[in-house]
């Protein structure tokens, strides 16, 4: 198993240059009225999809970008081009 990720800045690179940043759960929720369950859902809970998942990655050893990509967790392969975070 060798992960290769496409960094929107640096191109295809060895997966070990990156840090995984979790399943994509959207922007931070507003603080007001956030219940413990809703907070926990955002912070801790995962879908653990066996299949294609949108997720965050950080090019730690490279350009320092956070970006999302789609990856198939049953194959450990990227499935489409990522989009850069603004």
């Amino acid at each position, binding site marked *: 198993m060798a992960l290769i990720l496409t960094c929107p*800045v*640096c*191109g295809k*690179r*060895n997966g*070990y*240059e990156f840090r995984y940043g979790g399943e994509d759960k959207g922007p931070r929720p507003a603080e007001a009225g956030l219940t413990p369950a809703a907070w926990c859902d955002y912070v801790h809970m995962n879908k653990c999809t066996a299949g294609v998942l949108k997720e965050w990655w950080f*090019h*730690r*050893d*490279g*350009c*320092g*970008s956070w970006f999302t990509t789609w990856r198939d967790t049953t194959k450990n392969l990227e499935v489409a081009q990522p989009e*850069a975070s603004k």
Partner: protein
Amino acid sequence: MVAIKRQSPVQFKVSPRNTEVRDNWTVALEYDEEGRGPWLADLAHKTRWDLQDSKVGEQRPCDLAVPATPGSCTFANDTLVNRMNRTQTSVYHLGAAAPALPDFAGYTDVTESTVFLALFGPKAFHIAEKLSALDFLDPAKQAPFLYQGPFCHVPCQIVTLEKAADGSGGFLLTCSRGYGDSMIHAILEAGSSLGLRPAGENRFSAWIRGLQE
């Protein structure tokens, strides 16, 4: 009385034959028996800038254009401008002197932040492939170009200035200053069977002069 002198993060075991003091740095100009290459030169004293701005592409450091795409470099007048990402560029001054830091908030002088080395000459990239999986000889890439990636497990900026399919050419490497001792040890070990020797600034300057002609 303590002398005001600056220390490079990198110390070679051999002493240089000729040195010159410049801005409190003791610059090695030439070593005994530098050999026929490949060579490793310590460029710690060369000024480096970090330039960040949301419109970094519109900046003109030292009157040079900032390249439009990350990974591309502008190299002229002994100055190298490397586009790192959407908002960031590094500037290396490879000549004898560097201009003052421009009065623009996006600039930071990062000369002190990094180890700065040049590895060049025959088989330079045969040494590199013992330390990094980055593809310096990618036929699709034209020198000069910038890689930001691991070299001997340490995140580096590496600018390939010259390359040929036989592995000759050369590159500049920066990494966190603290890794100086470890990095030099690793590079010299990897290069030992290929004849890698320390070289002084003279040889480096001659090399980059040739590249700019």
